[in-house]
């Protein structure tokens, strides 16, 4: 059976300080919702960093990384370390783009980490449209990024922060089970998560009442917008070659990344337009 991460990545952030790009490296990797916690993910992060160092030409061991599992941790980390590059979940990207001066340079291609479309899923037959969910409990991975949820995922139909009673969860299937149990009225799942949820006892009653437009993937971003074109080119080359290389393929595999590809400008552009700034 294919192994999948059912929780989409909220933020996989590779932070590289400006100084590091300019010369001595000071690299941090911040990854959330790939599963596990900061400590247990560190060996994977370290292997990833060592590979990047070797391909970009940084001194061995110069890059530092961290795996962070919540928006709060990410914000704190960014404030503390001033990283240079991140692999970040689209919700966080759109919400912090201006504040952090983010520039998307690549995106992740992964059937395990990326949700190309999301659905609002309910169980109660009386709930037919989003309007029926007014004031109801919605448990989602996107509760920490309500603006992205409202504008990009729900296409501006409702203001999620005020329309629903939101609760942040760490696992998509957790939301599905909460709906089945009656702990909440709705959750948000992608196609695969919805299919998987239907295998859970009582899951056949789950159904989507709303489907989002196409959603952007996880972008690789630079912070501060001050990366030199040559450094940026070096990093893009290193990332795009990584998953096809003999030494990088296993690292991509353990991080559940299929490959790094150029940004899908159409989808990102449309999402940006919906987000509105």
């Amino acid at each position, binding site marked *: 059976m294919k192994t999948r991460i059912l929780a989409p990545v909220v933020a996989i952030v590779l932070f590289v300080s400006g100084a590091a790009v300019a010369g001595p490296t000071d690299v941090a990797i911040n990854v959330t919702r790939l*599963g596990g916690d900061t400590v247990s993910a560190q060996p994977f992060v370290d292997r990833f960093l060592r590979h990047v160092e070797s391909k970009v030409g940084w001194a061995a061991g110069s890059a530092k990384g961290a795996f962070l599992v919540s928006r709060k941790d990410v914000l704190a980390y960014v404030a503390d370390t001033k990283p240079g590059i991140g692999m970040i979940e689209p919700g966080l990207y759109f919400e912090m783009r201006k504040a952090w001066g983010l520039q998307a340079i690549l995106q992740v291609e992964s059937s395990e980490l990326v949700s190309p479309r999301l659905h609002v899923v309910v169980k109660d037959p009386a709930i037919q449209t989003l309007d029926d969910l007014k004031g109801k409990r919605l448990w989602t991975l996107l509760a920490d990024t309500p603006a992205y949820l409202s504008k990009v995922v729900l296409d501006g139909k409702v203001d999620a922060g005020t329309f629903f009673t939101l609760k942040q969860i760490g696992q998509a299937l957790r939301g599905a089970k909460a709906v089945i149990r009656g702990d909440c009225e709705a959750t948000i799942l992608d196609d695969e998560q919805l299919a998987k949820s239907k295998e859970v006892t009582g899951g056949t009653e789950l159904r989507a009442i709303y489907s989002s437009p196409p959603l952007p993937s996880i972008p690789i971003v630079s912070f501060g917008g001050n990366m030199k074109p040559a450094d940026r080119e070096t990093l893009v080359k290193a990332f795009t070659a990584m998953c096809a290389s003999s030494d990088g393929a296993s690292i991509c595999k353990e991080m559940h990344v299929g490959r790094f590809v150029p940004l899908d400008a159409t989808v990102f552009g449309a999402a940006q337009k919906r987000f509105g700034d």
Partner: protein
Amino acid sequence: MSARSEVFLQKAFRYIVAKRWWVVGIYAVLLGISIPFAIRVDQDNGIDRLIVKEDPDFIATQNFARVFGASEFVVLFAEADDPYAPDVIAAVDALDRRLSAIPKVASNSILSIYHRARPDADPVADPGAFKTFATGTALFGQQGMVGDHFYGLPLILDVRDGDQREEALKAIDAATADLIASPAPLNALRKVGEPYVNSYLNEKTSSGGMRLFPVFGGFVILLCWGLYRSGRALFAIIISMLVNVALCVGYIGIVGGTFTIVSVMVPMTIMVTCLATLVYIHSRYVEQPPDCTVDDHQAFALANKFLPCTASVFASAAGFAALVVSDIRPIREMGVWLAIGLVFTWLVSFTLFPALQKILHTPTQVERKTSAQWFEHVAAWMPPVTYRWRWTTVLLALAMSAAGAVALFGLPGVVAPMKILTDPIDYVNSDSQLYKDTRRVGELMPGLSMSEVWLKGKVGSLNQPEILTGLDAFQQALEKEPMVGSAVGVTTVLRMMRYIGGKGDVLPQDPDEMATVADSLETAIRQEPLLSRFVDTKDMAQTHITLVTRINDFPLWLELDKRVADIWAATLVKHPALKELGTDAPQMVGAVRLQSKVGHNLVPTLTESFALTVAIIFSVFLVVFRNGAARLMAMIPSLFAILVMFGIMRLTGMSLNVATILIASTVLGTSENDQIHFFYHFLEKKNGGTTEEGLRHTTLIAGRSIFFATLINALGFLAFALSDLPPIRQFAILAAVAFALSMIADFTALPGALWMVFKDKPDALKTPADAKA
């Protein structure tokens, strides 16, 4: 039997003998059908073979396996003076890597955990860091993964059948062979676990049969030759026996049966019963009077032995069929298979065997004198001697029987009932390395018996932080219970993961942090595969806590159930969220519990099946013999033999186990043949004659057969005393002893009791008044 019936039977047997080639042809066809099925009958001593499928605990254990997997567990035990010495770490690490590379075998050793937790660390280069890691928490020690002088390497075997199990065990053996042969720097490397016990029993029961049946065959040839002094007679007997066994085992193959440590005795029991029946028939056949043709005498002999043989075979068959009341699957199967096998015995004895006698021209005493002519002296000597010693023999037999009953059932306040062994390791030869390893590991580990506390909630129950917190409290309360060696559950693994992550070996107290732990349980399963063995990954609704104990008696399991229920109730008060997992006592499941239950059910099985066997055989006696005294007296030798045998068991330190528990039914089922033949011929003369005439006649006609049949039965079973398996060895010795005791009673206490019941005396001692009376 009426003269009319006898005439009819003689005609029927003449017809069978006349159609002898047809008979042989039919059996040849039946053999052709049976043999392919017979050779398919496999050997399996797994728990699923030892208990009936309808048993609720068995069903629960099967259901549990569907949720959490049906893995089997092996523990490798590496003993060393200093487990943290670099060379010891290197040896165990290398072993662990070899084991991890075996397909269908997962290692979860402390070293594999260390490598997962610290991928760049080298425990050999920095043993101090490894020791700090291993001893920094009690979690590893509680699970027996590491101790002051050992490593425990738990291996999980994801095998689905016996072949896969054997393959995995062979691979483990290959990976460990070097260290077992020369353990340095270890002190010893030991392998234990139920898969090894099952494999041992399968191997020994199979190889034992191959080795011991020829020994039995040798006894048969020796005795038949010694008795009849005819190769042709020997050939007829051997062929008939083999056909009987082939048909019986073929039937077992057709119904999809599998031999276990118990039912492996089925072919042996069929062979001895068939042999005894053939000896009765042939002994009568060889007594051809000079003035009678062989054909006429053969028809007479077959008709004459038809009733007692039929009665004894069908009484035995019905007696064995009574074992169907047992909840123990191999005992139930053994009963049915023996009953069917005995029907084949009856058919073969009265169709194929007479046809072979005729085809082979087996000689009678007219052509060739049989051995044991001294039995005529016994026949003359027995009546007066047994009369003289009647009180002594009868009272002695009663006293010995009473002592045997006390040995079995005990005497309140004085003697405890006989102990029943239910631990499978007790079926293993105590000289074997497996036995020694298991005993040694049992001393050092918190136990080798595992039971599961199965908790079932709603979808997503395990994602609730309050429930995880409650489960952790429940698990720790269980661990404090004196009957429990260690308790391992989902929260144990979570705590271990937190320890590896540098957060200490306890779950977070902060509700938000605990909510994160519960929230991310599914992703944690990806990190630590061991977690998936404790939660149902589909619904996150069910979990279990594995209790490791030293318990192997079912009453103690029941006591533990009560303690677990009490602890659960107490935990519910402190953690009401746990009510989602049920307010009743949690369900307890596990293969070891089932093994113990099998053992616990042995006593009712023994008493119920034995009582039924007695009732059925007594009913047969009612039909066959119209004499009231006979009905009672006929049972004496068998009951005497059985009870005295239990006394011998007690005196020699043998225990009741899954094999020896059947001894009573087996001995009764086979030895009552002797009493039926004894009485049948006794009454032939007693009716209208005197007790002395009856005794003299039956000793001459049946006595020789009883003597030789007993000799063959006893020595036949005794061949299995060479078995490597203690239960089989004990069963064989006890059966042989019981047959001998039964025969002794046939020729002593039984005639003594008959003198007393009939209030008669030898003809020579009778006064004219006695004669007139």
